[in-house]
């Protein structure tokens, strides 16, 4: 039978949040790229919560943007509400979160993809990898067509051998009733890839007209919206926003759930996959936190042109009838009409330990992967990996240095390092507490941290690059200046201090010292700082943070210096650690399994002790000497 055969530089499998970033990155770098999706209608689909961003996830979106990714731009075009979370806390934990118009989000991304040069979109199920001698050569589709390529990026999300469950009902589909991908898993296994089975879940969607909002608290967006993308004009995002609504479960809800636990496929043992602890179903919450009398429920619009409302906080896999009963106990939902049932979804993903920090498979050259396929969860986590996997697929085709971000320079670095280094037993979600240097990894400075890298890769324009360089200079100069501006204890100063509830000065001091007072900031003191230059808002923000948190920032920078030393000690590839006699057995096994790229990464593998790290260092030094001697 004659079959189609085509050639591309890069094949991307899947067009969710990871696949889109991967495909766009490759095409934008000039590589002929084809992206496969089981349904073109599901490009950049948001099958679960209708938001982008949130604590630590907002950071990821900013970083994606700083590297030249699309997510931030796309949400800026399609959000219907936006909030900066944690504004009363330190700058490190400020985080943007926007409600998306799901359909618009999807459509906007699709349009961007369709109008990107070198990018081909193809609706088909990829069912086989072509691997020769440990090198990827392309993929085959279900129809028998062959697509040869120099690199392949797998972003299959939750589609591999997916099944959706509630009560006794099992649908063998991907999310939202979409066609699953049932063949690729076998091909992966044939190529020696170790698979996991994970699960996640989503709550019901309820018809807006059946909800009594008067019984709920309204949750509005910020008055002044801050865009995600560094390229979006802030004036363009000051739109009329939609509201979300807050209500609560109660003892009645919990009783119904408890009485029907035996009908949940999880408690009945039908579901094998491991679910995420941070995103528990309402059943889990009621069982695990039995002493809580109520749980929050957020009612969020799915879009501007739909009546569907997302019931945040009440994901479930209980049977349909129990879902009705349970949702209707919640104030405001007494007459709720369900549009879509809540369900749990099970899917195949890989053990991400098999990947290098470049997101390339250690054992299959040219094969990259990103997103939920790698055992993560969340749109932002997916997009981050998709972007890195796409960039590195492109770099490998172009024969350039790969992009590896470390834990001290980005959340994306933390995310990928955690995935490939730690034992991952549940879908991985980003959290600010996972970033040990979070004071340095703020959402406000993502451009300063990463845009130069984005520029070097070729995804950030000259103009953006020039601005980042200029911004750096302005910040540095202004910080320097402010540290040296002397402020006398004169009447004018005392008046300004008094106005801001700050104690008057006894002696003269510097402007910086005043800014460090908790109740004051850079902008408050304009009046007593006549030499102050005109600076853009984002420069002022950086100056303020640098001065206010100077001590903490310096401490973390010192820690980073120590951290870098071990990160920079590279370990050889495909190394047999059995050779290093003095390592403990467990360390040898783990090191052989993980094949870490640096001593730093090795030190984060569980089962590798500080003594093992000393041994490795001595061993490396020894090899180094031997090389020199030869």
């Amino acid at each position, binding site marked *: 039978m004659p079959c189609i055969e085509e050639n591309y530089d890069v094949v991307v499998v899947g067009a969710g949040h990871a696949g889109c970033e991967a495909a766009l990155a490759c095409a934008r770098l000039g590589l002929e790229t084809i992206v496969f999706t089981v349904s073109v209608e599901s490009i950049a689909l948001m099958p679960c919560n209708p938001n982008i961003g949130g604590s630590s996830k907002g950071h990821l979106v900013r970083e994606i943007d700083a590297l030249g990714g699309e997510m931030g731009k796309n949400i800026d075009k399609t959000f219907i509400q936006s909030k900066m979370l*944690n504004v009363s806390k330190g700058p490190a934990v400020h985080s943007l979160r926007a409600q998306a118009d799901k359909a618009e989000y999807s459509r906007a991304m699709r349009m961007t993809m369709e109008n990107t040069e070198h990018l081909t979109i193809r609706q088909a199920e990829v069912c086989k990898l072509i691997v020769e001698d440990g090198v990827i050569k392309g993929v085959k589709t279900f129809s028998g067509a062959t697509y040869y390529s120099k690199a392949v990026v797998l972003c299959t999300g939750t589609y591999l051998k997916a099944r959706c469950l509630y009560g006794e009902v099992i649908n063998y589909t991907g999310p939202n009733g979409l066609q699953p991908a049932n063949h690729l898993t076998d091909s992966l296994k044939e190529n020696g890839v170790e698979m996991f089975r994970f699960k996640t879940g989503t709550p019901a969607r309820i018809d807006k007209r059946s909800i009594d909002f008067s019984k709920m608290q309204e949750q509005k967006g910020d008055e002044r919206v801050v865009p995600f993308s560094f390229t979006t004009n802030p004036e363009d995002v000051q739109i009329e926003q939609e509201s979300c609504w807050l209500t609560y479960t109660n003892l009645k809800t919990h009783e119904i759930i408890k009485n029907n636990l035996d009908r949940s496929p999880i408690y009945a043992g039908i579901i094998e996959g491991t679910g995420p602890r941070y*995103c528990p179903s309402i059943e889990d919450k009621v069982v695990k936190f039995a002493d809580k009398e109520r749980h929050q429920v957020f009612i969020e619009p799915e879009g501007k042109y739909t009546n569907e409302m997302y019931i945040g906080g009440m994901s479930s896999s209980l049977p349909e009838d129990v879902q009705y009963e349970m949702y209707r106990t919640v104030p405001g939902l007494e007459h709720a009409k369900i549009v879509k049932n809540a369900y749990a979804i099970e899917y195949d993903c890989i053990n991400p330990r098999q990947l290098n920090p470049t997101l390339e498979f250690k054992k299959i050259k040219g094969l990259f992967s990103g997103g939920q396929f790698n055992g993560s969860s969340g749109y932002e986590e997916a997009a981050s990996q998709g972007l890195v996997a796409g960039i590195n697929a492109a770099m490998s085709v172009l024969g350039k240095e790969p992009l590896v971000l470390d834990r001290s320079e980005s959340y994306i670095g933390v995310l990928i390092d955690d995935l490939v280094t730690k034992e991952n037993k549940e879908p991985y979600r980003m959290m600010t507490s996972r970033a040990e240097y979070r004071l340095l990894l703020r959402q406000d400075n993502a451009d300063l941290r990463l845009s130069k890298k984005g520029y070097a890769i070729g995804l950030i324009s000259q103009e953006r690059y020039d601005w980042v360089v200029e911004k750096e200079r302005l910040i540095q100069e202004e910080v320097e200046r402010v540290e040296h501006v002397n402020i006398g204890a004169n009447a004018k100063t005392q008046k300004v201090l008094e106005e801001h509830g700050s104690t008057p000065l006894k002696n003269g001091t510097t402007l910086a010292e005043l800014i460090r007072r908790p109740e004051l900031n850079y902008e408050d003191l304009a009046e007593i700082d006549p030499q102050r230059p005109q600076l853009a808002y984002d420069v002022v923000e950086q100056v303020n943070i640098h001065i206010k948190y100077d001590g903490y920032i310096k401490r973390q920078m010192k820690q980073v210096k120590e951290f870098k030393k071990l990160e920079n000690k590279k370990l050889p590839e495909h190394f047999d650690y059995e050779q290093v006699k003095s390592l403990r057995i467990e360390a040898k096994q783990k090191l052989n399994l993980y094949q870490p790229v640096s001593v730093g990464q090795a030190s984060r593998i569980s089962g590798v002790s500080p003594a093992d790290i000393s041994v490795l260092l001595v061993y490396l030094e020894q090899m180094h000497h031997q090389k020199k001697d030869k």
Partner: protein
Amino acid sequence: MKTDTIAAIATAMTNSGIGIVRISGEEAFSVIDKIYRSKNGKKKLSQEESHTVHYGYICDGEKIIDEVMVVIMRAPRSYTTEDTIEIDCHGGTLVMKRILETVIKYGARPAEPGEFTKRAFLNGRIDLSQAESVIDVINAKNDFALESSISQLQGKVKEKIKEIRGKVIHEIAFIESALDDPEHFSIDGYGEKLSKIIEGISKEIEILLASSENGELLKEGINTVIIGKPNAGKSSLMNVLLGRERAIVTDIAGTTRDALEEQINLNGITLNIVDTAGIRDTEDIVEKIGVDKAKEYLKSANLIIYVVDSSTELDQNDEEIISMLSDKKAIILLNKSDLSQVTSQEVVEKVLEENNMEKPVILISAKEQTGIDKLENTIKEMFFQGELSFNDEIYITNVRQKAALQSAMKSFQLVQQSIENEMPEDFYSIDLMSAYEELGSIIGEAVGEDLVNEIFSKFCMGK
């Protein structure tokens, strides 16, 4: 890797002779300048020539700790190739320990086992052929240190530290949950509450620090195991030793005595008899728990007293255990000399000879209390001839643990400072986490996924 400044006691911790405390690293001179005082009080060692010796005193502020000789060696002309200071002090475990503590108080950190050697190697000081043995030293010493630092810790102390860590991680998890899910948890005004909790924790750590001053965190002494077959007379021996000598009951301030040990003082030498149910309460350790378990006891012991019932024949078990004593300090007791002898001194010595061993063999009768003096004298001789030493690493371990407690304390103070300065709540968890790590290093527990686990198990998160 780290270029910070390290210090350790470089000589064996016996109770005689001269002891050396060694400091190496960039800060070595700044540390010694703070604690060294010359006779006229004017000399600064940082201004002196390399490879010179100086007489003077080590002081902690106004307090003189010891009269010393200090050798200074500037980089790269030292063993580690870094700036190195050696303080020769009067021997004596207590003095050496106090000098080391002072050095640490003024800026050095306790060296890891084998760290001087490691630095020497990494700085190219040791030649390549020695590399393997360097690795072995690091490994062996680390294994030992890990074992000793944790196993030597008083059980109650370990519990206390675990308890404090539990409190700390709970607070961090609360803060982090609130940051992660601000719409679920509010931490406004939380600083005040946290400040009180930390006040309480700080008091508990102060108590632990006070105990560490007295060396009471650790089971100091010569780790001694009494071992033997059922009915060999181990209990009677134990009773005799306890009865004749003053049994020390150790009471750590704020904790109760660890039930698993007996301390016996033989004319100033402390024997820390690692007593287990297997050894003292039941008579048949070898049969009940097997030779494997016996091996384990032997491993952690500095001194082994092997009791043989001389009224019965040596069997395979005896011979097997004796063969395990080859690289150990051990004394073999032929008990029940009051009964008719079946196993004589010659028989045991023959077995020893077959195994190429030389161990003292002493005839005793626990029942008649004969031969006990000889046992005591033998132990004393072994100690004063330097054959037996205190658990070498134990003082170092103690110093290290104390340093960890102190830095945990410092971190808690930083949290209090952040609260006072009205810093946002996310700043608290930075220093709380450091304190958690420091405390963990004392009991050999790393941080790992503790925080994430605590967050998910204690706080209901998510959509």
